[in-house]
């Protein structure tokens, strides 16, 4: 009798234990999946950001590293001092140079993003309309430039655009121009560089949404009296908004902080925040100022995007 009860209890205990273990392992499984990217972000994004933010509150000094400590411990008098200098941020606001640089970066990034979209959309649309074997080939061609270093490709553009470069020689050869045009070291060259470099980042997300698009939706629109142009603007384009949004972010964000392209292709007066950052760090050796510039850039970029995302999520619900 007691033996039976004993087995019963043991069995019961075991089922509880397995259930508990199962729950635990599910929780652990979930945690381990999320933890890898989280740890990655923490180590390579959040902590460096805090370091940069900390430096932005210091004062420049002739030392290694070239800034003062925020926290000073005076052992003789037993005084702990915390010095936070917000002057860098004030200075960012007061000196119109920085504001101009931000605005100019955003403008250049926005215009480039617009043109990437303008060129990328028809390409993605064309690829998505092909049969699957052709699609793979075309997508490979889109990604192909990544096999060459980004820096080399920008240098190649210098070769194209310089005074006696391919473009000028070609235009002269066909007699369109007498004198070589100033193409390199212009804003135009910066736009070409950015659009060229970031085009795949626009095409890929657009392609994914277009490829998933149900063809019968467009047929339904036509059936209900919409011309192909109307059907495109009323159905295809709105259905592609997630892809357009993703593509624009993928182009716009790195374009704002772009340094190599304006440095190599732009004029000396092409004002972009990436170059300002570089100058502050390496020309002026003012690390706190450079850090303040970086912090503000991040906030300017991230905050509106966060708002956009939450807005989108709410709309979905």
């Amino acid at each position, binding site marked *: 009798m007691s033996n039976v009860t004993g087995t019963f209890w043991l069995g019961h205990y075991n089922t509880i234990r397995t259930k508990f273990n199962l729950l635990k392992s599910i929780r652990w499984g979930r945690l381990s999946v999320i933890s890898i990217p989280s740890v990655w972000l923490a180590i390579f994004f959040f902590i460096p950001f805090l370091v940069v933010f900390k430096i932005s509150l210091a004062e420049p000094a002739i030392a290694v590293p070239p800034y003062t400590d925020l926290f000073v411990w005076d052992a003789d008098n037993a005084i702990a001092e915390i010095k936070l200098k917000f002057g860098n941020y004030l200075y960012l606001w007061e000196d119109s140079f920085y504001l101009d640089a931000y605005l100019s970066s955003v403008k250049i990034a926005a215009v480039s993003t617009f043109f990437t979209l303008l060129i990328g959309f028809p390409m993605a649309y064309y690829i998505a309309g092909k049969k699957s074997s052709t699609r793979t080939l075309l997508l490979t061609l889109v990604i192909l430039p990544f096999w060459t270093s980004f820096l080399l490709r920008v240098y190649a553009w210098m070769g194209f655009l310089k005074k006696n470069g391919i473009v000028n020689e070609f235009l002269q050869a066909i007699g369109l121009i007498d004198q070589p045009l100033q193409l390199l070291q212009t804003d135009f060259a910066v736009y070409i560089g950015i659009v060229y470099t970031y085009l795949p980042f626009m095409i890929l997300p657009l392609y994914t949404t277009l490829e998933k698009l149900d063809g*019968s939706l467009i047929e*339904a629109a036509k059936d*209900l*009296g919409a*011309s192909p142009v109307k059907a495109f603007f*009323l159905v295809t384009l709105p259905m592609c908004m997630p892809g357009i949004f993703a593509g624009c972010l993928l182009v716009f964000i790195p374009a704002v902080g772009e340094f190599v392209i304006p440095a190599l292709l732009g004029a000396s007066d092409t004002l972009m925040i990436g170059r300002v950052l570089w100058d502050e760090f390496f020309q002026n050796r003012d690390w706190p100022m450079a850090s303040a510039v970086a912090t503000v850039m991040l906030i300017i970029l991230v905050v509106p995007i966060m708002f956009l995302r939450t807005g989108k999520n709410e709309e979905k619900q």
Partner: protein
Amino acid sequence: MIQESNTPLWKLDGAKPFIQIKNITKKFGEFTAVDNVSLDIYENELFCLLGGSGSGKSTLLRMLAGFETPTSGQILIDGVDMADIDPWDRPINMMFQSYALFPHMTVFKNIAFGLKRDKVPKKEITERVNAMLKMMQIEEFANRKPEQLSGGQRQRVALARALIKRPKLLLLDEPLGALDKKLREETQFELVNIQDELGVTFVVVTHDQEEAMTLATRIGVMGNGVISQVDEPRDVYEYPRSRFVAEFVGTINIFEGRVIDAQTDYVKIASKEACSKLFVNHSINCAPKQKVAVAVRPEKIKVSRKKPDLAYNCLYGKIIDLAYMGNLSIFRVKLESGKIVRVTLPNLVRENQNPLTWDDMIYLSWDNDSSVVLIS
């Protein structure tokens, strides 16, 4: 006899067809999807194109809508050649198989879409859409997105959207395919009522013969790009003209045989498969000793334990399978020749004292007018 005023248009001489499909062929590369099809459909008809997948029925429908261009042939709607008319200019609307509701628009906007393209005044749009929502009993969903609706509700929205422009012709691609069985049956009758009420010509494509039977005024049975038979549902079922139609619509027993005597009012056939002489009381156009097939529906076959006093249409075999379906029972009877005959009997009484069961030997017979001879 049917009165003159109720005679359907397709039986009247000289009636003008609403849709004229003339020798339409559609090829995709080497593959012929629709092969030289000619068909007349009349006003207010609910015409069903019935066929399996790859039969060409959907391609034919898409050519009517204008999404496919015929390789050769002509389509006239209300006397107008459709060749140079784009889908968006045709007086036709279509209800898509997957419904193709615009996911980014509310139910109201989905239904209003067609009217907006026609630049109908805003006030009229609101009125007409609201009336349509009411008719379809989906008023409370007007502001929902399609993803928030059930299958049946989506089906109504799709139908509403297709009907709002008051098209002369409505094409429906598997209209009930995505619904579960119960909802399907309800919706079938509703669809017929709506069609009747609005007086729109419907052309329905379906692979479901039950659906075709209940919906259609006439059925066109399609296979391999060809329309094999166009008839009223009853005639398609009772008088199939070919083996393909007989086997595609419902279940049927087919016995191969040779003609032994053909007269103007009957045919006698010897069939080794049936182990009996068969008698059919309609004439056929055939050569003596020609190979033919006799087809009998399972429910036309009578069953008895005693040998019936018949010289023809009398078979003998063993029950090898039976299935109780509630309203009827299905038997599979194996003849001496090895041929298996399918028989259905209605369960007329609740408790049968001497029920037929496995391994029982029984006689099968049918009336002279219950079978058809199939040549092709």
